[in-house]
Structures are given as C-alpha cells and as structure tokens.
C-alpha cells in the first residue's frame, strides 16, 4: 500500500512501490494537471510539491513519498485559500502560457522557489527553474516571477 496525502486528501493505493508518483497521480487518481514530458527528470513538466519541495514526479517512486503531503497544480490555489495563488495570478497578468503544457510544472516549481526564497537573485531563479518550455515563454516567466519578487521586496 502506498499512503500519502494529495492536496489535503489522504490516499491509499494498492500499487507497486516503484511506480513513479506521476503515473499514480495521472492514471490511478485521475489528476491530469501534472504532465508527462520526458520521464527522465529532464523537463520539469511533472513537477509537484512534496512537503513544499519541488519534485519531478516522473522519477520519484511512490515509496519515496510515503506519508508525505503532496501538492499538485489542482491543489495550489486551495492552499493559497483563494481562487488563484499569487503565482497563478501573475501568470494570467503577464499572459505567460502559450500551449500551456509545461505550465503546471513551471508554476509548481516557481511557487516552491518563492516560498523558500521570496526574493531570489537572477542566478537563483535560473538555478531553480530549469523547466523546459518548448513554446518559449521564458521572457514572460521571468517577468511574472519578477513581479512577485518586487512585490515582496517593496
């Protein structure tokens, strides 16, 4: 049995311990907001937060997240106790997404970064946000992050 909480809800799944969290979320729990992009931790499309830390779920076996609190894109706003989390709102304000496929992972990575480090330097942003966006939304991703950090510093 794999046991963890997803977006505040306790889950108990009779699955193989080595099943990556990504496929437990998508195929067992039907939470399709978390995306499959590469399967080898190279793109970040599958990023979720485990106890608040960004984790690439495609290479994270469920055995490694036993007993943890997992947040997916579906649960991000709920945690923020608002319709949208600040990162999601900034994404709308800056019209960041294009095709949108990478954006769940991008938003999960950014919100984890800003929670841990509300005022990151450019180098810290570059180091933490290594997600691939094939549509090239990077300039807007940076602007949207900066709009949030400016607000934090002000």
């Amino acid at each position, binding site marked *: 049995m794999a046991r963890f909480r997803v977006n505040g809800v306790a889950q108990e799944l009779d*699955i*193989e311990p080595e*099943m*990556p969290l*990504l*496929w437990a979320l*998508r*195929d*067992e729990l*039907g*939470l*399709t*907001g*978390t*995306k*499959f*992009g*590469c*399967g*080898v931790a*190279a*793109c970040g*499309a599958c990023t979720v937060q485990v106890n608040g830390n960004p984790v690439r779920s495609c290479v994270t076996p469920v055995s490694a997240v036993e007993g943890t609190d997992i947040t*997916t*894109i*579906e649960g*991000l*706003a709920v945690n923020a106790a608002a319709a*949208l989390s600040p990162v*999601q709102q900034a*994404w*709308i304000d800056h*019209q*960041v*997404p*294009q*095709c*949108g*496929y*990478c*954006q*769940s992972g991008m*938003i999960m990575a950014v919100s984890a970064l800003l929670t841990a480090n509300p005022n990151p330097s450019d180098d810290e*942003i*570059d*180091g933490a*946000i*290594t*997600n*691939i*966006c*094939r*549509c*090239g*939304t*990077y*300039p*807007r*991703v*940076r602007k949207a992050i900066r709009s949030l950090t400016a607000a934090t510093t002000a």
Partner: protein
Amino acid sequence: MKINRRRFLLGTTVVGGGLLIGYATTRPSKHSVANDTLAENGQSFLTTWLRIDPDNTVTVLVPHSEMGQGVLTSLPMMAADELDADWDLVRVEQAPATDLFANGVLVKGFAQSMGVSVPGFLDGAINKVSEIMNIQITGGSSSVRFTGENGMRVAGAAAREMLIKTAAARWEVPESELTARLSHVHHEASGRTATYGELASDAARFEPSPNPRLKEPHEFTLMGKPIPRIDIPAKVDGTAAFGMDARLPGMLYAAVKTSPVFGNKLVSVNSDVALQRRGVVRVVELDDAVAVVADNYWRAKQALAALDIQFEATANDQVSTQSIYAQFDTALQGELNEDVEEGDTPTALAGAATTIDATYRVPYLAHAAMEPMNCTVHFHDGKADVWTGTQDNLGIRGRVASISGLDENDVTMHMFYLGGGFGRRLPNTTNTIDQATRIAQQFDVPVQTIWSREEDMQQDYYRTAVTSAFRAGFDASNNLIAWENHYIGKNEPAEAAHPPYSIPNKSIAYADSPTHVPLGAWRSVAHSQHTFFLESFVDELAHKAGKNPYQFRLDMLRDKPRHTAVLKAAAERAGWERNLPEGHAMGIALQESFGSIVAQVAEVSINSDGSVRVHRVTCALDCGRSVNPDTVASQAESGIIYGLTAALYGEITIANGRVEQTNFNDYEMLRLSDSPEIDVVTIESGAALGGLGEPATPPVAAAVANAVYILTGQRVRELPLKNYRFTAAPVERVA
C-alpha cells in the same frame, strides 16, 4: 429543426426560430451530425461562425486548433469587432470537426487571391478533390489572415447589417439613423434600443450581404487591443485538457516501440514476458511496432521495456548522417531543377572581378512538442470516438475512418488543446494516429496510446537536413552582380531560397535527394534553413565587400520599402553597434515569410568555455496590422526561442539507420538561464495581414551567427553552435 440545406450556401435560413447565415465556403454538410450540432434548441445562428442566443450572448465557433498562438481569442475578436458585439457577452467554442468548418478551400482560395503561395503541405492535400472536405488545418500561419479576414470579419459585418435592417423595419426608421454598439442597436432620435438577441430571429428575413462593408482600421473597437487570451485561465490551474488528459471509464493505456530504423518490419517478440506482468492486458503486434496495453501507462511502458523485440535488417541500417551528407554532395554535382533564373549568371560570374564560394549545412531537427504524441481511440457499436490534440481534426477523422474502414460519419472527434504543434500535428504526419487506431481496434474499451519521449524523438517527421552551396560575384566597383545557389530538396514555401535583395543575375536550383528519414513541416518550413543560409552568406559578402552588414543590406533593398522599414526599425531599436559592452557584438538578419517581414538583431558574446551567449534579440516585425498586439509579441518571442534553440542545440543525427538522440538530455533545449531578453517592435504598415506563428523563427540563427563572426572571425556555416568552441578574435568592424 433541421437546417434548410437548399439555402445554406450563402443564404439565410431559420433555425429554431432564429437565423443562420451561410458563409460556408463549401456546400452544405453531407454529414447529418454537422447539421444537428449547429441546430441546438433555442439557439439562433448567424452565419456558420456566429450564433446569437436570445440572452444576447454571441458565440463564435472557431474552426482552428488552439496550440498557444491565441487563435481562440484573436478570431472571435475579429468577428465581434465587425459585429460591434460586447466582448463580455462573447463566448468562444471550438467548432466541431465536421465539414461545415472545413477551411481548405478558404485557405487556398484566399491565399492565392492575396498573392501568397500556399505551403505545399496544404496544396498537396487540397488538390485531391476528394479530400477537400477533410481539411481543417491550423498551419501555415493561416488562421487569422484567411479565416479571420475572410470568414470572421465578413460574418460579423454581415450579421451586423442584418440586425440593423431588422431594427429599421421594426421601428420603421431609416437604417442610417441606427447605430450598433455593444450588442445593442440604438435609435438615438427616439431613444429606442434592442439587444441583438431580441433582433436575431427576425433578422432571418434578410439576405446576408456577400460583401458587407468592413470597418476601416480607425473604426476598430477590439482589433488592435491587447485582449487577454481566453484559454489562459485554464492553463494556470491544471484544468486545460490536452489529448493525453482524456480520461474515460475502463480505459487502457498502450506503450509502443516502433522499429528504430524507419520502415523496417517487426520480426518477432516474446510477448509472454509482458503478459505475466501486473496490469498487462495484451501485447499487440503491428507491422513495424509492438504495443503493450495495460491498465496504467507506466505498467505498459515497463512491460514493453522487458520485451525482446526483433526487427528485420535492411539496407537502411547502413545509413548515417555522413552517408546522407555524401549523398547530398553527389546530388549537387548532378542534374538540378530550376528554381530562379534571372539575367545571365554564368557570364556574370565569369566576368566578375571577385567571386566568393561557401557551402552551408543544417542537420535534421525534431519538433519535440512538449506534449509527447498520443491519441485515444474507442471502437464501439460499429463507430469510433477519437480524443487527441491535432492541427487538423477533419484530416484525423478521415484517417481513422480509412484505417478502420468506417464511414467518416461514424468517427467522432473530441478536440483538445495541443501541447505544442510546430508542424508535428499536421495532416500527413499521422504515424501515432495510425498506431493508436490499429491498437484500439483490438479492444472494445478506449485505449490511449502514448509515445514515450524517446519514441516521440525517434519517430518524428523531421525538419530536413540541407546542404546549400553558394557562389557570388562582385564587379570591379564592389557591386554584387551575381548570385548562384544550389541546394538540396524542393522548398515549401517555394520562395524560401529567394533573397529579397536586388541582384541583377541570379541562378538558384535544387537537387532532389531523398533518404529513408521521414520529413515534415517544422515551424516556418523551408525558411528555417534557407534564412540561415541566405542571411549568413549575405553577411559574408558584406564583409568581403568591406561594408557594414546593415548598410550592405539596406543598399540592396532600395525597391523594397517594407523590408527597408523593418530592417531599419530593428537596427534602430537595438541601437545597432552602439554602446556595446566589451566582448559583445551584434548580428542582423532579415526575412519575409508567410506574408510577414521580420528583422532581428542579436547581441552576443562568447563564454569563457568558448560557447555562445545570446543576451538580447531585438525583433522588428511587419505583419500588416496586429489583431491582438500581445499575441503578436508572444508569438514573436516564441518563434525566436524556437529558432534559437535550433541554432544553439538542435541536431538530430542518424547512425545505423536510426536517430541517435533519445530525450532532452541529448536533444537539448534552451532554458530560462540561457534565454535572451527579447524586445519586439511591430510596424503597422497596413499591408495584407501576414502570419505570426512562424515568421519570427527563421532569422535568429543567422543574426546570432553573424555576431559570432564579428567576435571570432569564424564564419559559422554549419549548425548547431554547440558543436563549436570559439576563441574571441574580433574582426575589424566597418562603421
């Protein structure tokens, strides 16, 4: 109530007490499902693309796929603007995949009337008359300029005229005394007002004008404004559904391994090994592939990896990048097909004071859309349902029907957002769809076939590799008098290798040199390679002539005012070669594609490890006029990063007949850390609308490579740049 088919084409008809205006560019649907879909109870219709409901909402049906280019917003803006609709009351729906919304005729007809060459991948499909009804393509940067200009705007304007006529008749006042504003018709003199919803059903008495008056740009209320995209909210909270997100009761998942050497057949597989594993339902053997079907994708993928799969060996197993390049070199020495012949190039070259030769090359490229290829199919009750994201819903419907032997009427498409298109999800690139159909045929539950990233990268329809050889000649006063260019492969679009510059003698020709590597349209199609070639070689010529590359181009564009304006705008905005930090240089490049003209200036330096760093790209763009300026900017940013990724990293190589790259660790992508600042300036020339999805991609590679030359004295004639280790050795700059 059924639609009156007789009067459908360019006529009006009553539907459910309301109105339908047919601006369909085709005959009425032969498919009953199309008619039923349109005629839901209680709704009034205005034209094929517009529906006005009694509650005064306007619904715009968009026949193109949303893949991030903003088409679900920009097309409705065009209709709503002409209709003078209240944007807050506008709803947008994806038009169903039925032939009422086929846009093939529209695209081709209007493309030609506007003097734009139709990309060959469209043309080929359209010319088969039997397939005319099966084209619902989003590609060739066509949506806004063709469907938008000729469908959406006309439909909106015609509907507005009919609503005005209706109010005039109802109130017995002249039409000239009426105004339409924010989904209401007003009669100022008497203070009367009516909503469009109140007028819609009576409007059926009037014939729609085939040529309604369209607004002048100064009358626009929505077009030209940065309207937020309607698809974005769902893309920040995880609710936007992509093809891979289809979830259906009882569904199974298929993982596939296709012969890594394209086209080689399956010989054997030890299926038993997979069948013993948890969750595995069946192993499906296809002609050139094996699929494992299980109750969870990871289980299917693991079981597939455990199999010993044997494919046949063929002569293609010997093919490599080196053998392909050697084949190209031989082909260029053989018989060539004429592309452009102007003046007398051989004589001009023979008499030239100086000549310069250079041979350029680019590798194959994969699309690598962020969402790996996938398709879900459910066969049941002699019918099929298909869930996938595609640039061509009708084409996919036809494809599934023909593979399974069903009537198209019995195949229902369920449309999804595309996790990237870039040409990969166009018609005639259906290997995933074909497999998904054949796999699902063996089940009575829905089966979702998902390609791993490795399959996606190794079974693509690639941007072709190309070799392109140039020779140019200058006269004694250093004027460029002759241009000879021989390259591999017939171009789509045909003009991709034509320099915009005035050169008196030009001889351009190509050699066909097919290989077993499957090819497809890749963002900007042949422009992606030829702009790199042309704009790099022109830069070489500028330096050879002792001229500043920017001025050299300007001098040869005297008869091209739009090109000149764009080039100047880019140079001025970038501050061409002014105040550059130590160790930085600028390169410039220009190209017209899909009706838009784009110039880019790249500011570049060389890292201490000899790699290239692009700091800033300034992009000037003339697409006629911006329908949604924010979308124009984001498409330009996207196109630049797509092109820059290819320039820096993009390289698919072939060894032993198969693609060597497997995933993002060996087919690298630009990331946030190496993403340049991008500054987009648009020029509203008022020319016919140009495309947006593609034109920003071509110039960036040459702009960067031209800056690299200034920094290092090394001319980059082959991409990608990651294969070089540069040493800074600045060349003399000419002001």
